[in-house]
């Protein structure tokens, strides 16, 4: 390799000697090897050629055929597989001898259905990893074989046309009997990185199975949200300077109490998150585990969801499934379809209503849990969070305890045998029972509203009205001296308020309705009394609930007892008092 004409000849020689044998001859050999090496040089993944030409497929085939020929030689016929018989239904349908041996000899291809022509007519109900769950053909092969015009074509068109994450075109409602499988349900939460696809028909079948299984075990389904429902999480960066000593104090107190894994304040995600579990959460989960099959459904990402799951349930046996943001079918809402469970048996516990557009009746709305001040700031400009106040919700009397009681009551009522007002078990709907429970809260109250919304709006469509009716109260459009028991007023000083006061009826703020809804009981009206118009806007004894419903009402037309300025002050005070009082209202007594 030495080129005598290059000036650095000796250096070249030295290098060449050092790499003796490592490097081959130059250009000429490179060209010779060019053709061969060119198509093998993309480095990654399997462009190896065998130096001894071994073909594994051939080997495999040889092996299997050898076994079969040996079997033939000896005259051994494998008996029809016993498990092909449908024992469960009593009538024993044996596969006939010829399809039986054909099925056995064909080995793995779909022993799925009991029909004699099992091997041929696989309906491909489930796709996992791109393979049919029953007969093992890949999706592409199935598409080719079927020729596209029939159910598989529809199937793939439904799946393909479904786009990224939308699916279920016909919504599965009355989803065509037998063959037509338009639309696919994609389940992403079953396996870490591969999704399972189920045809609508199959999804229906699974739903029915789930229903009968749950009813026979006397369990219902409960879906839990995480953030602000069972816990409150913030980034460590957001926790301000002033909160640090308080956090340290809480940590110290929990150390002393020696709660171990049941402590409430945790750091997650390599110390980037502070997570505070809501008091009473462990009692809640344990108290309901027998009665309800629980699932987590959160808008957080899946690693967060998995970590929280470990916190809440170290044994890992409590939650049947965990659905995170990427597993939802739509990005901004939650839906129960991914759980393949029955809507009639499922209840949802969540703090926000808007993420459950199709399932409002399944929802139990719980008060939002704000422990960290920085978190509270995101929702409201005022108010003090629980950490700042140094207190926390009560374990026995807080939101979770209340809801546990309600859920237990619903469960008992659902499975009660002797109640004549309920339809038979298979037809019962937990949503109806929930609504009935809710209507007990304000049973017997007749409400009239004042200054809660502008005069020109239809009162029956107002959220406050609907909330009141959901709670079981009767709503009256006008003040009726005989019938009205409460006047709900956002501001004092109107005709209705005066009349009510003169007759000794209760005059309450709209926050009372919301608080009753959160607490599932009729709270004392005195706590939410509307202040006298003579006081200048202080809310006195008001300790309202959290989300104060619109105090923004345009009630100027009904007589001006207050000037516009004073009215504004009343409204702001109500809103402010509501926020600050929220935590007060929940504090341990």
């Amino acid at each position, binding site marked *: 390799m030495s080129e005598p004409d290059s000036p650095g000849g000796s250096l070249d020689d030295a290098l060449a000697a050092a*790499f003796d044998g*490592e*490097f*081959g001859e*130059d*250009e000429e*050999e*490179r060209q010779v090897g060019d053709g061969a*090496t060119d198509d*093998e*040089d993309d*480095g*990654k*993944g*399997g462009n*190896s050629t*065998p*130096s*001894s030409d*071994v073909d*594994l497929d051939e080997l*495999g085939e040889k092996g*299997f055929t050898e076994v079969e020929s040996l079997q033939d030689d000896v005259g051994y016929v494998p*008996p029809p*597989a*016993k*498990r092909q018989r*449908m024992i*469960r239904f009593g009538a024993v349908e044996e596969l006939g001898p010829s399809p039986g041996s054909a099925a*056995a000899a064909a*080995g*793995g291809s*779909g*022993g*799925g*259905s009991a029909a004699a022509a099992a091997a041929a007519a696989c309906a491909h*109900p*489930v796709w*996992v*990893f*791109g*393979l*049919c*769950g*029953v007969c*093992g*053909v*890949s999706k592409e092969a199935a598409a080719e074989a079927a020729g596209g015009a029939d159910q598989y074509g529809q199937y793939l068109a439904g799946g393909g046309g479904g786009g990224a994450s939308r699916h279920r075109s016909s919504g599965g409602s009355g989803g065509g009997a037998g063959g037509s499988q338009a639309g696919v349900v994609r389940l992403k939460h*079953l*396996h870490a990185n*591969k999704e*399972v696809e*189920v045809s609508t028909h199959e999804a229906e079948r*699974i739903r029915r*199975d*789930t229903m009968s*299984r749950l009813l026979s075990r006397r369990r219902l389904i409960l879906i839990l949200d995480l953030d602000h429902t069972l816990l409150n999480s913030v980034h460590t960066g957001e926790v301000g300077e002033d909160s640090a000593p308080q956090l340290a104090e809480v940590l110290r107190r929990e150390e002393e109490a020696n709660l171990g894994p049941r402590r409430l304040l945790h750091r997650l995600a390599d110390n980037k998150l502070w997570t505070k579990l809501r008091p009473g959460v462990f009692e809640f989960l344990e108290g309901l585990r027998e009665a309800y*099959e629980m699932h987590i459904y959160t808008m957080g990402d899946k690693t967060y969801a998995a970590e929280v799951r470990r916190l809440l349930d170290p044994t890992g046996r409590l939650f*049947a*499934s965990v659905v995170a943001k990427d597993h939802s079918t739509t990005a901004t809402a939650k839906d129960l379809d991914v759980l393949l469970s029955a809507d009639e048996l499922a209840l949802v516990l969540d703090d926000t209503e808007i993420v459950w557009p199709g399932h409002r009746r399944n929802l139990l709305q719980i008060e939002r849990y704000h422990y960290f001040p920085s978190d509270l700031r995101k929702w409201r400009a005022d108010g003090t969070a629980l950490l700042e106040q140094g207190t926390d919700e009560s374990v026995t009397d807080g939101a979770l305890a209340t809801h546990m009681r309600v859920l237990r009551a619903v469960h008992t009522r659902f499975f009660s045998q002797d109640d004549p007002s309920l339809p038979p078990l298979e037809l019962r709907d937990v949503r109806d029972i929930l609504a009935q429970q809710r209507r007990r809260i304000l049973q017997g109250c007749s409400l009239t509203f004042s200054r809660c919304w502008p005069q020109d709006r239809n009162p029956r469509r107002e959220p406050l009205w609907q909330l009141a009716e959901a709670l079981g109260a009767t709503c009256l459009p006008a003040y009726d001296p005989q019938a009205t028991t409460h006047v709900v007023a956002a501001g004092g000083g109107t005709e209705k308020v005066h009349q009510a006061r003169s007759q000794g009826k209760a005059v309450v703020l709209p926050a009372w309705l919301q608080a009753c809804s959160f607490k599932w009981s009729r709270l004392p009206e005195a706590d939410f009394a509307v202040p006298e118009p003579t006081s200048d806007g202080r809310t006195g004894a008001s300790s309202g609930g959290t989300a104060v419903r619109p105090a923004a009402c345009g009630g100027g037309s009904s007589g001006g007892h207050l000037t516009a300025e004073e009215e504004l002050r009343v409204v702001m005070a109500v809103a402010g008092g509501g926020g600050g009082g929220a935590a007060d209202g929940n504090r341990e007594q």
Partner: protein
Amino acid sequence: MFYYLTLNKSIDIHPKHFGPKLREVIREKLIAETEGTCTGKYGYVVAVAKVDDIGQGRIRQDQSGFATFDVTYGCIVCRPYKKEVLDAVVTSVNKMGFFAQAGPLQLFVTQHLIPEEFEFDASGDNSWISVDQTTHIQIGTHVRVRIVGIKYDPTEVFCIATMKEDYLGVIGADFS
């Protein structure tokens, strides 16, 4: 099924490695590029056993400075076959079936291919329990299944398997 094969591969080496440790670098690069990959032809490369021969390096003529070495190596591959019976360990259970793992292979057995006497039970851990309550399929259970369909990804092999034939089923209790 596992095989020991002797295969060839071309490895490109950056000039910075042209030093006394060149052979080691080639070996490491080979291992990094082949272990864990899989193809339809050979299945999943589980491990490189030994490097038989490293050919003479040829310097590429495209001004990159890289040199290409032809490496012949012996490796263990795992190649599943369609009707093969193998033992697997259950990794997760859900109402549509269960996932199992057999070495580097991931298997899924759907409900349709689980014998009729098993029912899904969601109380406590997810599991499939036989009607007479004697057999449980949970995380950690050893099962014997037959492969029905295979799919190759560049880095993983997935299979669909059945448990619905004679001599297949649960063969060991919970080992998790």
